[in-house]
């Protein structure tokens, strides 16, 4: 592993001069135009910015769903550019809990099976993964909705299933792309409480939001504009105990 010199502890996320360009020629879009940032373990970061400013693009790169056009992304000190497809799948599986704006649950499949899914690919034994999925469903308050399919759940409940799926594998890092975008204020307060609790346990949380009330609960707020970091503000200090990946 590459040691980051003279900075302890090692940041879990290091993004260095990352750009992302979509399309070619006339249709070329610079979704990210050179972003550099570091995120410490145990931080709770909100990313804000106008629509089209590149938030989702950045988040997808952080979540190893997409690769940068240029620049470097080091996760736990490892450059993801050097990882092959299988290793990337393993990183997504073990280190990251990704929560999508549009839930992204598998249709016609029970909530509990959706929560178990990452553990299926991690090779966790059936009994153990059922147990861990149950715990995750309990922690999001959906212990009574185990066998409902996504279509049989409300938007807020679906989002909580998505959260349960993200935390069931005990990832050190939670990445959430507008997790409260589709929720009313009560439901979004529930989800935010969950994130706060997870962060209090020492997990790193990065979320995208348009709402100031959501951003206010984060320890650090990063604003993007036109694919660049506009400002980076710390509201609360970092907790001393952090969970290592």
């Amino acid at each position: 592993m590459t040691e980051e010199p003279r900075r302890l502890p090692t940041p879990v996320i290091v993004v260095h001069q990352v750009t992302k360009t979509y399309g070619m020629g006339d249709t070329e879009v610079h979704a990210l135009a050179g972003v550099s940032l570091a995120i410490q373990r145990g931080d709770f970061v909100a990313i804000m910015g106008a629509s089209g400013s590149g938030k989702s693009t950045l988040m997808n790169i952080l979540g190893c769903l997409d690769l940068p056009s240029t620049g470097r992304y080091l996760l736990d000190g490892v450059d993801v550019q050097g990882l092959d497809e299988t290793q990337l799948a393993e990183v997504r599986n073990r280190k990251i809990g990704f929560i999508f704006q549009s839930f992204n649950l598998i249709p016609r499949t029970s909530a509990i099976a959706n929560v178990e899914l990452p553990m299926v690919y991690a090779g966790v034994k059936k009994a153990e993964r059922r147990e861990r999925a149950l715990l995750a469903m309990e922690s999001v308050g959906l212990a009574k909705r185990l066998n409902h399919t996504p279509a049989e759940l409300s938007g807020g409940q679906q989002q909580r299933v998505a959260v349960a799926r993200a935390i069931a594998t005990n990832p050190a890092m939670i990445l959430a792309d507008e997790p409260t975008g589709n929720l009313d204020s009560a439901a979004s307060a529930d989800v935010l409480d969950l994130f706060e609790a997870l962060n209090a346990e020492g997990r790193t949380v990065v979320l995208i939001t348009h709402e100031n009330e959501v951003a206010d609960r984060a320890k650090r707020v990063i604003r993007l504009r036109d694919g660049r970091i506009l400002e980076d503000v710390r509201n609360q200090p970092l907790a001393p105990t952090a969970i290592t990946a």
Partner: protein
Amino acid sequence: MSLDNLRIALQGLLANRLRSALTMLGILIGVGAVIVLVAVGNGSSIAVQSQIQGLGTNVLTVQTGGFGGFGGGGAGGGGRRNGTTSRSVTLTKADVTGLGNTTLVPDVKEVAPTVNASVTGTYDGTTYQPSQFVGTTANYAQIRNYEVASGSFFTDEDQAQHRKVVVLGTTVVSQLFGQGVNPIDRVVKFGSARFRVIGVFKPRGTNGVQDQDDIAMAPLAAVQDSLTGNSGTFQSITLEATSSKTTDAAQAEVLAVLGSNHKLSSAQASTTFRVLNQASLLQTSNASNRVFTVLLGAVAAISLLVGGIGVMNIMLVTVTERTREIGIRKAVGAKKGDILGQFLVEAVLLSLLGGVTGVVGGLIGSQFKIVGITPVVAPYSVGLAFGVAVLVGLFFGIYPANRAASMRPIDALRYE
């Protein structure tokens, strides 16, 4: 992981029950068709073989007239070939005697000259014309494997005494006597002559061309006396070779004797006389039946292929429709192999289930008579159809599965 793959694939299939069932149907019909059609081909070939064997594989039949072509049939002038008019050559008593000479014709065991009459039988006001009325010698029944169900066949004694006795096939019996009448010892008028029925043949059924039970047989002498006239010539001579292996040798000997009797060169003899050889008939029919079976199998194989393309089609639709699902699975850590495995297992499961039901359906379908043929299931066709079905699923599943597995998670997730 492979067990989980199986479970995930099963869930995928169950989530789209109707579509899965329809895809399976394609494979089912393909596999079933292969089994049934090959069984039909097989069954018909076995039936024809047993019929030919029933006629006796060591039987040769000699007739005059070549294999048509020159002058042929009713042409008045006839074909003059190599100085001989084939019409003028007939089978005579001398030929029968010559063919009975075991030093000249060592591979022939029995010789039976036959004449055919076209004659209407009358009994108690009912008339019927058998399609065959054969006058022959007493050894004919044994050469041709005719068995008598009641009464007996005529003897050499009947032949020597010119007795007007007749043995009838069951079709003739039922036409002349109707139901419930024992024909034995009753007298039937054939033409102007009165023949006493002394036996009834066991039913032989059809040979595919004619009803073999529509026949009457009487001693040659009596038929010549009263129906055909005693011209001393025969329509054909039926011979029995010493074994089914010597029929070809016997055929050559027969042609040599006939050639020398009629002063013909061997080339002339082989065009003047026509020797039907049951063994070679069996070979020919075996060959043509094999072609028939292969053709049927090919038709069925095409339907299996179409079924396979159906699997590919459905898998492609499934992959397209479930692109987002693929993206989600990859986002939470599914590797390429996991996705590949899932969709391949789905495809193979589809064709496996279709294959199993197709085998069952094919075996059931082969229990029924199809266009008069009793199908005989060829075990190889079951294994082949089933194996091909699974391979088809694998083959046609690989492309869609690979397409699904190769998608980048972000592209799959963005897919609308």
